[in-house]
């Protein structure tokens, strides 16, 4: 499947917002700098993915998982990302668990309702 060049780019608006929030107030970012950071971000995804994939292959797995990504960050000298990433992972897992429990509860309630309707 061939990707068009635009598909490998990240949305400008989001990239710009992340940059602005990181830099002190009132700092200008040239359009060229913005575009360069966006390209760099795409390259980073490829770089990180390739490295993470090596860890997956070492573990004889075909599916990239969270620990592969974390190992890649250490390997590529982005250790500073590891703690915030672990926190994000915990938050994501809690959220997924919450969603699952919510939908299971909904199903239980629905079943209960159907039962009582049939009885009535």
């Amino acid at each position, binding site marked *: 499947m061939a*990707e068009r060049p635009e*598909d*490998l*780019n*990240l*949305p400008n608006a*989001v*990239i710009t*917002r*992340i*940059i602005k*929030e*990181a*830099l002190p107030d*009132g*700092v*200008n*970012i*040239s359009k*060229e*700098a913005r575009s*360069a*950071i966006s*390209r*760099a*971000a*795409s*390259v*980073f*995804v*490829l*770089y*990180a*993915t*390739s490295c*993470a*994939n090596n860890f997956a*292959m070492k573990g004889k797995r*075909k*599916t*990239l*998982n*969270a620990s*592969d*990504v*974390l190992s890649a*960050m250490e390997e*590529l*000298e*982005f250790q*500073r*990302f590891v703690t*915030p*990433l672990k926190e*994000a*992972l915990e*938050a*994501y*897992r809690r*959220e997924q668990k919450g969603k699952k429990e919510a939908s299971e509860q909904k199903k239980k309630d629905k079943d209960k309702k159907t039962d009582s309707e049939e009885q009535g």
Partner: protein
Amino acid sequence: MADVVMGKDKCGEQRLVSLPLSRIRVIMKSSPEVSSINQEALVLTAKATELFVQYLATYSYRHGSGKEKKALTYSDLSNTAEESETFQFLADILPKKILASKYLKMLKEKREEEEEENNNDESEDDEVES
């Protein structure tokens, strides 16, 4: 599949990840050796990319000359790619720029050097003949 992972607040106060997961996935899958990606790996890669953007921007700003002008410029970024080992993987896509006039001057000087070498060779031939 939700494109954006929502944070705890429903009023959208803080999202876990702002970059679109679908786009991150497209980029990851463009890598030929990758077979499949589990959802957690996708979320973490997206989050790591955001952290990377922040890091690249702040590092380049702090180390760049743009600080006096309160601006982040392309040359701040290309300097970072050249000087920092961590960001060296970006060197090819963030090349340093030189003025066109300087480049043309370099070309001219190179051509003059080569011409001089050719002239030296010719005079050697003359000596051999006589």
